[in-house]
């Protein structure tokens, strides 16, 4: 019996002993890299091996002729023989998914030129993974990808830039939101078409605000106010917590940090957020970030806030408002959650709370500055599937960003309309007039100044960089030292950028 137990524990012990001795303390991203040479010998290049790249000093405008072209008339010819079928991968879920399905069905039955087949891949991440793993034949004709995938997509060299189609079709982009276009443009090329634009807004429970003696028409704008409100909410017993905070990469951990730095007028990465030349390092470990996250930490420690964790499902921070026993009164979440949240509340899931009790305010920040970065996702046309498919994808894109469709889309979801014409059309016109909550995200975009900080970072491994930033925010919100956590994360993020740049196809 003891011999048996020994059999099981012996290997365990052996490996554990091995473990303690063999850690290098280095990041896995350093694996395979030669240690820096002690002398400055001339770099030798072995056959088939690339040297550490030297990046061009500035990002030159990329000539559109050097990229896959777009022939919109190819659809007219192809559609004469029956509708052209295109496959469209998206990463939406819930009410957002259903609204996209409704719009697509309507489009399919409204004309005979294009048939769109929707394929939900799960999350944006699944969408990116599947796209990267697939070869040209297995990629969809059209794919919806989030703002953090811009540089990654450019470097796959697998897309027809929408600019090629815009030029070929003589498409007037005048009605499209300039900030949204800018987010998906770099090197003077419009790579993708913004479709669903969102930004973080404050969700709050008006009833709790009233119970706590707060003015429920005046949501907090600064982090100091968030703390003061939170204290009052706790002291009056109106709710268990003030604000609920998460540290998801696409939420409170990564995305919000990008937003907050922009609101503070700070760059996220060097070379103007990677827009004047490829970024080589991140800047989120500076004094502004440390002060910002110290204040955010205090919101949890002394401001009545509650940290709900890494929020893998993306809903924990919102669900905390619906918690039956220890609810919070506020949270920050994407404006795209507004439609789903109202549907959720309408179902009577929180006793005594109706849809009118959900308040929406601008995203609070250290100094209460207005404005927001463009979040959400854009539409990319896959190259190599023939002119007809690309033209069909383009035609569907023009439908999705038309004033009429954007009006329905924004009214049903909470996304910001990318077409200003949508503002003058119902249903959005009356929704914005009757329900100012839907307008908050739009106003944040409109108030953003036109400078590089508000154009957002373009970094190849931005998703992974976000994961490291999110890990730091998570540590800080659970009581870690802000300066240390941010410095560690920034070092890792800089490793990520270096690794990425070392295997870039252009080098």
């Amino acid at each position, binding site marked *: 019996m003891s011999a048996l137990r020994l059999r099981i524990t012996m290997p365990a012990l052996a490996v554990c002993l091995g473990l303690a001795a063999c850690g290098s303390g280095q990041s896995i991203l350093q694996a395979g890299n030669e240690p820096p040479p002690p002398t400055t010998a001339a770099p030798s290049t072995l056959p088939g091996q690339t040297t550490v790249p030297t990046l061009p000093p500035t990002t030159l405008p990329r000539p559109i002729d050097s990229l896959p072209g777009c022939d919109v008339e190819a659809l007219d010819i192809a559609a004469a023989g029956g509708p052209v079928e295109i496959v469209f*991968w998206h990463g939406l*879920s*819930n009410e957002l*998914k259903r609204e996209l399905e409704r719009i697509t069905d309507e489009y399919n039955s409204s004309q005979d030129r294009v048939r769109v087949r929707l*394929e*939900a*891949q*799960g*999350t944006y991440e699944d969408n990116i993974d*599947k796209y990267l*793993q*697939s*070869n040209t*034949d*297995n990629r*969809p004709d059209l794919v919806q990808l989030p703002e953090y995938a811009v540089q990654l997509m450019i470097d796959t060299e697998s897309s027809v830039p929408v600019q090629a189609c815009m030029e070929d079709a003589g498409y007037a982009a005048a009605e499209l939101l300039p900030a949204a276009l800018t987010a998906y443009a770099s090197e003077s090329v419009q790579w993708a078409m913004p479709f669903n634009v969102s930004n973080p807004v404050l969700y709050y429970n008006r009833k709790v605000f009233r119970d706590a003696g707060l003015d429920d028409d005046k949501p907090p704008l600064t982090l100091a106010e968030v703390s003061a409100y939170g204290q009052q909410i706790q002291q009056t017993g109106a709710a268990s917590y003030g604000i609920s905070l998460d540290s998801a990469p696409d939420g409170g951990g990564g995305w919000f940090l990008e937003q907050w730095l922009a609101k503070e007028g700070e760059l996220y990465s060097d070379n103007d957020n990677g827009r004047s030349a490829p970024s080589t390092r991140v800047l989120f470990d500076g004094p502004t970030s440390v002060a910002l996250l110290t204040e955010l930490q205090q919101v949890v420690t002394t401001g009545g806030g509650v940290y709900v964790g890494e929020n893998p*499902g*993306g*809903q924990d921070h919102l*669900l905390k408002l619906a918690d039956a026993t220890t609810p919070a009164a506020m949270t920050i979440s994407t404006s795209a959650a507004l439609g*789903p949240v109202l549907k*959720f509340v309408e179902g009577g899931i929180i006793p005594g709370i109706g849809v009118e009790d959900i308040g929406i305010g601008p995203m609070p920040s250290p100094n209460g500055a207005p404005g927001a970065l463009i979040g959400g996702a854009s539409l990319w046309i896959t190259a190599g599937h023939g002119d007809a498919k690309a033209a069909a994808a383009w035609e569907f894109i023009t439908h999705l960003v038309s004033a009429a469709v954007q009006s329905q889309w924004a009214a049903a979801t909470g996304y910001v309309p990318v077409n200003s014409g949508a503002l003058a059309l119902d249903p959005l016109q009356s929704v914005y007039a009757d329900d100012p909550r839907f307008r908050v995200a739009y106003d944040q975009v409109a108030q953003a100044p036109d400078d590089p900080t508000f154009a957002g970072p373009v970094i190849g491994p931005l998703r992974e960089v976000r994961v490291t930033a999110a890990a730091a925010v998570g540590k800080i919100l659970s009581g870690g030292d802000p300066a240390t956590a941010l410095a560690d994360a920034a070092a890792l993020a800089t490793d990520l950028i270096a690794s990425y740049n070392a295997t870039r196809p252009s080098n």
Partner: protein
Amino acid sequence: MPFEATVVVNRSTMQDLGWLNSYQGLAVPFLATAFGTFLVRQVFLTLPKELREAARMDGLGHLGFLREVAVPLARPTLGALALFGFLSTWNQYLWPTSVSTEDDWNTVQSGLRALSLAELDKPNLVIAGTVIVAMPIFVILLVFQRQLVRGLTAGAVKG
């Protein structure tokens, strides 16, 4: 043999074969397993040599012996192996998620993952999904309990 170690390469093989989103892609890697081969071989080794000689007298060749004698005698093991294979493929999670890019090719497990991602705020819906996915195996458990036990314990024989 941990299949998890080879998912990356196998997925790209499937892509080269054009087998993404297909039954071949989902199933072919699991049509032959070292475990199954080992198990059936163990049974065949227990067949007495006299049986083979007798079959030869009756004019049975190798294939005839296999069809008329060996396989029928190994039937309990084959049944157990079939159930074991059914269970383990039914429960696969990473592989079906990797080789399908269309909803139509979600297996129950990857479909359940998709459902949970799409409707996480509707626990009732997701739980209904989990019950539906668990039911067939539960029925199999009730009907084929003995074979299932044999299938799961088959590996212990070699110990």
